[in-house]
């Protein structure tokens, strides 16, 4: 016993001895420890310097602000304005669930503050509505009328919100085109967002994932781009589907399908990346991907971009960082998630769109540029794609309903994390976040609320209306958590840009125009493939593109226009409006189109000429058909919508208002989405610019008067 103790003591003294010796041994701390100590020392040194700089410069910055007359918050009536956008939250469902006592926090807001329907824009499409939200103007003043706009020179679609072009100056060297200037990234939304006006007066804002904020504009605050921010391929979200099942290798409307072959439980394939614009002859960048299957354990091991990781079947991977190398030592970073849905008898795997890595963004997705880096470092990788929730993967039955929900709620959690971080950091100013979770889930699961929906016949449809009910309850809990974080001098607005209705039947407007003699096909053709491939423009008077627009093929405007401006156009429009207003569905006699909105009747603005000549107001149950959106033409006007994408809002805006909740009472019974921007300005004591079409909603003189006695 004594000997053992002595032995142990000796061992301990030996360890202690080595440890002590390391210190006097010429004070050397070795490379390993050196790494840590050196890094720590540098960080501490940098922090110390920054701290000193921060302390010393603060009085000067404070003085500078004073001298510039930006005593920002002096006229402000509130400390903080929090705007939570729940894209597509439908008032009828909100009211139903509130009545059933399932949304206690929304009910509390209604009782103590305000609940109203929120008038949306014409058309009732998210990019249009959110642009009106931020600018306080009608679409003719902000220039966004749809997701897509058309190029009158070639009748092809363009993204309406942003243009990404090649660099203007290029050095040609061998097989490379070396860019000497930045690529052109230009936002097409016009007018000023309210946070820019606030920022100019020194009011700080954090704007998270509001649609049509790509590319991010400079202002005094932080912004993370939302809807319309592209993926690494420059698209709005291109997933990849790997399958060893030859029967499942078919042409899909969206996404890329890569057939794979299994050899000795191994698959050698690739990840399809962006086009290599460094090369004169552009070609796709690819990353080798090796997949090893373990059929017994229902597990796969993936090897890509110098990483190895294992995944169980039916689970999503974490965000995986990929590095594409276009050449000349350049690197393009992306993040993505994998999901293996089947290992045997066939292998099937989903790869999410390649998101721009927030920590190393290939394109600017935030303002300032470092803001996305900061969020990535603080909270971990997050989805950066504008249309984040992969509705097309569910539409194409690549992801199951369960997997889609899992992915969507994981994205939502990331947004909540950044939202609450912003809320905590903003003591004074604006915090705005748009959650598209509500929009995506309702688009894909609305069929469960509509017993007559054709998509219910799909074998994939295995869930119930509970999905949407739970979604509303989740959002209610979110509102509850936000209310808990608010101080006495803060105002909360919870709103949606539009509501939702069933999308049972689709109308191919191009087919209707063809059948009725307004659109002609090339000789011998009875139908046209997408993007008007076989349309005879020399004989076509009108065509439809996008989610709700009809254009007159006008001479002098369209490349091959034949309808003269003035009387001829006017008379054609009157003829079309007469025929389309109240258009009935051949099959059931129901009214499919409530109203055709002539752009001349809509509120005017400097960009009115970019608006389609007509915006179509579909009735409940109808929407433009999938084929019509992409310029396909045939003889069939009305078709069933068998897709999981079964709810929509691109219809008559009068029947899809959004919701408006506020902790304060408001002055009107009919608030509009355009009223939010002027309301925000007035709450901070800033005069509303005359160009804004909306009006302040809150009576700032009686602010917080109703809250006495209700404080927690």
């Amino acid at each position: 016993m004594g000997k053992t103790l002595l032995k142990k003591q000796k061992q301990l003294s030996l360890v202690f001895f080595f440890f002590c010796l390391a210190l006097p041994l010429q004070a050397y701390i070795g490379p390993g420890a050196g790494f840590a100590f050196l890094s720590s020392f540098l960080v501490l040194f940098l922090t110390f310097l920054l701290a000193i700089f921060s302390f010393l410069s603060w009085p000067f910055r404070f003085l500078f602000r004073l001298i510039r007359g930006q005593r920002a918050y002096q006229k402000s009536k509130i400390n903080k304005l929090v705007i939570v956008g729940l894209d597509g939250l439908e008032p009828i469902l909100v009211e139903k669930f509130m009545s059933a006592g399932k949304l206690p926090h929304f009910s509390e807001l209604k009782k103590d503050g305000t609940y109203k329907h929120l008038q949306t824009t014409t058309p009732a499409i998210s990019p249009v509505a959110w642009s009106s939200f931020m600018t306080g103007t009608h679409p003719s003043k902000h220039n966004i009328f749809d997701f897509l706009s058309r190029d009158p020179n070639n009748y092809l679609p363009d993204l309406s919100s942003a243009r990404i072009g090649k660099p203007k100056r290029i050095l040609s060297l061998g097989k490379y085109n070396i860019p000497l200037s930045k690529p052109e990234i230009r936002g097409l939304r016009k007018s000023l967002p309210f946070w820019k006006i606030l920022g100019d007066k020194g009011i700080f804002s954090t704007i998270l994932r509001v649609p049509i904020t790509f590319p991010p504009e400079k202002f005094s605050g932080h912004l993370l781009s939302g809807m319309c921010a592209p993926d690494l391929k420059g698209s709005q979200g291109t997933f990849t589907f790997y399958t060893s099942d030859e029967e499942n290798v078919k042409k899909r409307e969206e996404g890329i399908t890569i057939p794979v072959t299994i050899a000795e439980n191994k698959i050698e394939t690739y990840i399809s990346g962006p086009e290599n614009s460094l090369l004169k002859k552009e070609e796709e960048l690819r990353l080798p991907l090796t997949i090893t299957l373990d059929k017994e354990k229902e597990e796969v091991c993936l090897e890509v971009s110098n990483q190895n990781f294992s995944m169980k079947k039916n689970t999503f991977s974490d965000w995986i960082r990929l590095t594409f190398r276009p050449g000349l030592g350049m690197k393009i970073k992306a993040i993505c998630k994998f999901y293996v849905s089947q290992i045997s008898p066939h292998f099937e795997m989903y790869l999410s769109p390649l998101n721009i890595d927030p920590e190393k963004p290939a394109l600017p997705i935030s303002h300032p540029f470092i803001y996305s880096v900061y969020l990535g470092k603080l909270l971990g990788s997050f989805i950066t794609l504008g249309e984040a929730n992969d509705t097309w993967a569910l539409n194409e039955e690549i992801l199951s309903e369960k997997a889609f929900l899992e992915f969507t709620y994981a994205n939502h959690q990331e947004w909540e994390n950044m939202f609450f971080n912003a809320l905590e950091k903003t003591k004074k100013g604006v915090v705005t976040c748009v959650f598209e979770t509500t929009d995506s889930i309702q688009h894909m699961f609305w069929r469960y609320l509509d017993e007559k929906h054709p998509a219910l016949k799909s074998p994939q449809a295995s869930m119930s209306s509970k999905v949407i009910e739970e979604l509303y309850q989740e959002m209610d809990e979110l509102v509850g958590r936000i209310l808990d974080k608010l101080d006495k001098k803060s105002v909360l607005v919870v709103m949606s840009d539009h509501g939702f209705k069933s999308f049972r039947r689709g109308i191919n407007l191009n087919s209707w125009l063809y059948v009725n003699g307004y659109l002609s096909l090339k000789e011998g053709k009875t139908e046209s493939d997408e993007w008007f491939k076989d349309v005879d423009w020399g004989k076509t008077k009108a065509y439809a593109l996008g989610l709700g627009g009809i254009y007159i093929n006008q001479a002098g405007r369209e490349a091959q226009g034949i309808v003269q401006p003035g009387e001829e156009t006017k008379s054609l429009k009157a003829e079309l409006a007469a025929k389309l207003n109240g258009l009935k569905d051949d099959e059931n006699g129901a009214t499919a189109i409530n109203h055709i909105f002539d752009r001349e009747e809509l509120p005017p603005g400097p960009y009115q000429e970019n608006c389609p000549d007509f915006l179509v107001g579909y009735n409940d149950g109808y929407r433009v058909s999938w084929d019509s959106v992409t310029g396909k033409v045939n003889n069939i006007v009305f078709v069933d919508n068998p897709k999981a994408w079964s709810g929509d809002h691109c219809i008559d805006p009068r029947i899809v208002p959004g919701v408006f909740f506020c902790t304060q009472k408001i002055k009107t019974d009919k608030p509009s989405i355009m009223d939010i921007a002027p309301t925000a300005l007035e709450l901070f004591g800033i005069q509303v610019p005359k160009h804004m079409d909306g009006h302040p909603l809150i009576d700032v003189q009686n602010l917080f008067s109703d809250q006495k006695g209700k404080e927690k």
Partner: protein
Amino acid sequence: MWIFNSIFGKIFEIIFIPFRSLSPWVGMTLISLLTGLLMLLIFRYTSNQEGIRKVKNKIKAHLLELRLFKDSLALSLKAQGNIFRSNIKYIGYSGKPLLVMIVPLILILIQLNFWFAYQSLQPGEITILKVKVQEGQNILDLELKIEPPRSLAIETLPLRIEEQQEINWRLRAKEGGLHSLVFRINGQSFVKKVSVAQKPLSRISPLRVRRNFIDELFNPGEAPISKDIPVKSIEVKYPNKNMNLFGWHIHWIIVYFALSIIFGFALKGVLKVEI
């Protein structure tokens, strides 16, 4: 211990063989690279890599916070506090690899000290030869004889310092080579190697010690003196050697420290080590 020292010393000899005639910078660069690699591997397998990655990201995030919220004094202070907290956590994560690394590092440093800290005597150069005698021995009566080879000369009679139990001679180097000084005491003999005009990168052992774990650990250049002999150590005072960088003389350990860390940082990406 001597067996271990011999093997470990041989490894270094083999590593340095091709570089012995070259500038010590070459050998130093190589050994720093190898050490950097070894330490990276130890770091990779003994540290919490995921934890380090996360805490480093947090530090970077809070540093960015200082820039993003520069107008808010409160947030800047909070960010600074968070940086300090995360830094402590980061240092904590380095504790385990540090403990694991410290043993091989000490052994490496001891070896390197004999290669880079001393330079051999030059022909004609005079130095001091010291023999420390065991406690309890009467140093004044002790019969200790030296038999120098022809290439070395003992120039003085022994100087006996009773208080320090030490006998000193003046030694002159005459010819180049690794020479053996033979000592005779009480009918027993032992040897001390003396380096004269050796190659630029040579292993030089200034001290031969009596058999004792700690003394042997720090003086592995020569076999220990037998316990039967009443001598504690024999020392040849060699001139110190420094690394010459454009006329600037730097202690070898500083060079080693800097290079091994530079190599470590340069290779961490290749070896996928989070440090």
